[in-house]
């Protein structure tokens, strides 16, 4: 992008001490890119005066106006398709569809168009668009508003799938997503946004640098080093895994936690390096268990080196829609209790 201020593309800077919520970090990334390029715009349901149901666009309409922060009708096929068309013409749309659960109504535009145009054109046409949405459960919103589904998008080729867990990553990954010439599905878990009306996750507010920076898409983060067991996970489950790791440290169980940060590309090297050290792999995933991320991670480790793992397990949503009633929902979510049990089994 020639319009970008090259000096603004700092590789990951020091986080400093200023703290933001994840929601605020996302807004800041969008605003930063919108200031540098008129091609960047936001479109979606309730992104304007409401500021996004999960506060992903709060305040942006005040600075950029309703022309560039555009509320849409509930016409997902039309406005997501429109994002594709604008991207094909070189604009950099950020399209939001509130909940990932709603994508069924417009999936064709996503997996047959947004994700395939670059391929079909033999690499001649780019679709530099960001499709942003909320994921995750844990607050009894029922089976049409609580899914994670990153495995679905990851399974269909042609789109990058980014899933931040911290405010720092949320800003840097959003900046990278906007600048990416590929279509990027950017999925934030409601539980990491730092929303005032949700159960507080202490790590949903954290240090975020003022300047613009990219967190490269496709590079996992070792969120905690350990030597006994590797937990590979993403999103809210990173925080659960870190909590469990801290608890178990007192008992001499040393857990390494890998935050994937993106599902596509999947940073298999970082996982492999960790498992080579710990020999025990647990994948924690708030998406459904079968045919998804956990199977992919475990399979790719086994294929890379059949002797790598002495132990593999997964803690996911068993193959059932997310139930409404609290006790049922928490029985199927990858809770800290389930993660802790899995770690204990791994080291026993």
């Amino acid at each position: 992008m020639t319009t970008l201020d090259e000096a603004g593309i700092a590789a990951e800077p020091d986080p400093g001490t200023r703290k933001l919520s994840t929601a605020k970090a996302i807004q800041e990334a969008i605003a930063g890119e919108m200031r540098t390029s008129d091609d960047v715009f936001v479109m979606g349901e309730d992104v304007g005066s409401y500021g996004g149901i999960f506060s992903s666009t709060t305040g942006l309409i005040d600075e950029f106006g309703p022309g560039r922060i555009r509320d849409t009708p509930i016409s997902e096929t039309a406005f997501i398709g429109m994002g594709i068309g604008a991207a094909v013409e070189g604009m950099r749309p950020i399209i939001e569809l509130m909940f990932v659960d709603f994508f069924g109504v417009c999936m064709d535009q996503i997996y047959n168009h947004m994700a395939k145009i670059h391929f079909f054109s033999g690499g001649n046409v780019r679709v530099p668009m960001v499709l942003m949405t909320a994921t995750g459960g844990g607050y009894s919103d029922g089976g049409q508003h609580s899914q994670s589904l990153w495995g679905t998008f990851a399974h269909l080729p042609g789109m990058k799938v980014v899933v931040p867990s911290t405010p720092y990553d949320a800003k840097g990954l959003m900046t990278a997503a906007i600048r990416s010439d590929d279509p990027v599905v950017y999925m934030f878990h409601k539980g990491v946004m730092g929303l005032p009306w949700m159960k507080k996750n202490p790590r949903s507010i954290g240090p975020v640098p003022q300047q613009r920076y990219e967190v490269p898409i496709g590079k996992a983060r070792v969120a905690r080093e350990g030597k006994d067991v590797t937990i590979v996970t993403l999103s809210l489950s990173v925080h659960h895994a870190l909590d469990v790791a801290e608890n178990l440290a007192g008992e001499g169980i040393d857990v390494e936690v890998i935050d994937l940060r993106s599902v596509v590309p999947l940073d298999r090297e970082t996982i492999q390096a960790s498992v080579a050290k710990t020999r025990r792999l647990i994948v924690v995933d708030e998406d459904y268990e079968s045919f998804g991320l956990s199977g992919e991670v475990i399979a790719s480790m086994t294929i890379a080196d059949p002797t790598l793992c002495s132990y593999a397990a997964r803690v996911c949503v068993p193959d059932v829609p997310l139930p409404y009633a609290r006790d049922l929902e928490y029985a199927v979510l990858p809770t800290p209790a389930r993660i802790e049990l899995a770690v204990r089994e791994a080291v026993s």
Partner: protein
Amino acid sequence: MTPHPSLPAEVRLDLYRTMVLIRTYEEAILGEYHADKSPGFDIGAGLIPGEMHLSAGQEPVAAGICAHLSADDAVTAAHRPHHLAIAHGVDLRPMTAEIFGRTTGLGRGRGGHMHLFDPATHFSCSGIVAEGLPPALGQGFAFQQRGSDRVAVAVAGEGAANQGAFHEALNLAALWKLPVVFVIEDNDWGISVPRDASTSVPSNAERAAAYGMPGARVEGNAVEEVWEAAGLAVERAREGGGPTLLEVHTLRLWGHFEGDAQAYRPGLDVVADQDPIPVYRDELLAAEVLTPADDARIREAAGGRVADAIAYAKESPVPAAADALDYVFVEGARS
């Protein structure tokens, strides 16, 4: 509102009773919903967690339409389903138990407030905008194939009328003359987006012409006018005349969901004056169809039914975590 001399007093009272029952119910749910979410509103806390979309102000739509239906007819609602469920006669006890996430609920605690399914009254709803419309076609098709005069009523908001499923459903229903009545509740808002910022025509009734079916719009949120227009549409469907699109200009008195501060919606205080229930009560009082004593009795009866349903829900057991994997299939397929 123009009085309908043809409307028997008993029908008018029934319409009023239904509206009062709905409002009484939703006020009680509202109280329960907020009771244990403080300090600091936490959407996931309390006896009723999750999102809560209430329909205060939209009672005339539900009462006016469902008055023409029996439990044999189908109703599909959207994410704001209670008024329609109540007007269609869904049993308050299991409905409430579902909203409280109990084993005695319509969905044994699996579905929650946006996913109410009642085979006894052929009632269903969906949290995905406009996606409750196509299934109504199938219910209508089943009624048609089996030679009955039953109808399916598919209800959605004016926001939903901009979604693909709405247009596909209208075309197909008209093409195959399915016994379906499409109802659009135009409450002016799709969450924070006003109708004139989302819809290219002032009235969705106009869109009916594009699909070759009659369209009608009822202004003023008046229950008797809804009743009249719905009567024609339902009769037409029962007689094999095919679908109708009926839009009612109604009113969302409260937020999109509970906890919605509605900063995007100026002039809220004006809205309260238009509350259709006191408006209708005054009209019935003036026409001497209703006396203040009747009114008190109607309210008391509604209060009793609602209190019973809520007590039933609260006394019912919560589902056991060990049963979380049930009901994915009728017969087990899990490996």
